[in-house]
């Protein structure tokens, strides 16, 4: 492997529920040329210091649909929408309309609801035969119920939108016709939601956004609104569900870590952060940027203008930033991981995700003290060909 030979990205998972040891040497060079699933080239910025700095560098544009950016998928533009401006100042003005819903007060106001849903789901798990698939029995329905409440989406529509979201996030999983059917269907579904809130507003974020848009369409057009709702809906449950699954798979495969938490539940928030840092969910596809000008990194190497850049979440394993980075240490503090990104595109839903992960982890380990994987960890199947990784199924018993 030389500096000029692109390696396939996302990297393959070679270990059962652990970060592959080869990631440790990734930071030997500041820039790793990669080949995306589309076959297009990109540059992966590998070191924590550079990744952190570049997240706040306006010479990297998030308007990947407006520039000749390398494609992630051969047949799916995923989040690229040339009609939407994802760079400042426009992006920041729109973002602030949404992040109002994620203040600490609002998140804490939602916590009892999330706990109640978690208890309800665990009661349903208990009432049926074992093993139970943790993904379908808990990890997906929990954040789906929460984001549906927040956005005012009927939870009973989930079968409908989940299939479309699955297609929307396809990288290589589905043929182009199917991808397009899902994209069009999801857009129409959310457009209908907006119309229904316009006619009969309810107490939710969608209705709030409709009100803002109706008062001043220059502030937020219908197109922009649907784009935001699409991002919120998708990011609101797929990522959280996947991370609940990855966290629990890790904890049950490395049972001594779960034991440690069960002996002291005050460790949960720190454990959630460390499980976010030790990222076994996916890759950095969401950090794709287009480089508008040459950028010099901390070691003098240059990210050339016109290149497609990915900011490596694998920087969470940089020994310059984290002591013993390959070690899971749930007491690590501080823990400035980059799993929610950094800078102005810092995950808008991060506070909600953190709270849901805390409720899920504590809830499951309290209610099921003997929770365990019902198959060997090495046999868990990963999700294939999608924007996010994670486990397709996690059979558990208790």
């Amino acid at each position, binding site marked *: 492997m030389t500096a000029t030979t692109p390696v396939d990205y996302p990297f393959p998972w070679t270990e059962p529920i652990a970060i592959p040891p080869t990631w440790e040497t990734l930071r030997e060079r500041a820039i790793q040329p990669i080949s995306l699933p589309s076959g297009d080239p990109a540059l992966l910025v590998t070191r924590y210091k550079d990744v952190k700095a570049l997240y706040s560098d306006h010479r990297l544009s998030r308007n990947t649909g407006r520039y000749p950016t390398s494609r992630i998928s051969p047949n799916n533009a995923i989040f690229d929408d040339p009609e939407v401006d994802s760079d400042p100042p426009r992006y920041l003005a729109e973002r602030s309309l949404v992040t109002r819903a994620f203040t600490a007060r609002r998140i804490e106001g939602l916590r009892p609801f999330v706990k109640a849903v978690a208890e309800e789901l665990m009661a349903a798990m208990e009432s049926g035969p074992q093993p139970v698939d943790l993904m379908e029995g808990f990890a997906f329905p929990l954040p789906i119920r929460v984001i549906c409440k927040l956005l005012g989406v009927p939870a009973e529509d989930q079968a409908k939108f989940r299939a479309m979201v699955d297609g929307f996030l396809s990288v290589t999983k589905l043929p182009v016709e199917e991808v397009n059917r899902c994209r069009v269907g999801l857009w129409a579904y959310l457009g209908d939601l907006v119309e229904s809130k316009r006619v009969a507003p309810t107490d939710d974020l969608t209705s709030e956004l409709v009100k803002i848009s109706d008062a001043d369409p220059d502030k937020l057009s219908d197109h922009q609104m649907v784009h935001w709702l699409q991002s919120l809906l998708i990011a609101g449950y797929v990522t959280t569900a996947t991370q609940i699954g990855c966290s629990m798979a890790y904890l049950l495969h490395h049972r001594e870590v779960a034991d440690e938490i069960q002996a002291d539940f005050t460790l949960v928030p720190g454990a959630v952060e460390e499980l976010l840092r030790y990222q076994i969910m996916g890759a950095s596809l969401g950090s794709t940027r287009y480089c508008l000008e040459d950028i010099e990194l901390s070691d003098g190497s240059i990210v050339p203008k016109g290149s497609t850049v990915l900011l490596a979440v694998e920087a969470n394993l940089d020994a310059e930033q984290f002591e013993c980075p390959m070690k899971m240490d749930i007491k690590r503090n501080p823990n400035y991981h980059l799993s*929610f990104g950094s800078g102005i595109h810092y995950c808008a839903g991060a506070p909600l995700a953190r709270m849901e992960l805390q409720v899920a982890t504590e809830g499951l380990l309290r209610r099921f003290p003997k929770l365990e994987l019902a198959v060997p960890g090495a046999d868990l199947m990963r999700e294939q060909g999608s924007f996010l990784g994670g486990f397709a199924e996690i059979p558990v018993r208790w």
Partner: protein
Amino acid sequence: MRVSADNTKCVVSDMCVYRVPAVFDQDEDGLVKIIDANPPGELAEDIRRAAKGCPVGAITVYED
């Protein structure tokens, strides 16, 4: 120690509020608000961490 925050940079990560609620709060839009600009010394390390952990560097600490 003195602390200030630039709410024009704030991206509403909520992290400073969770870390040091005695010093950081949010307005209705979630933008950072300082409630104690001259915090007691025992909070110093947590405040430094809040500043370092802010995704947009909106918090400034003056060590004086």
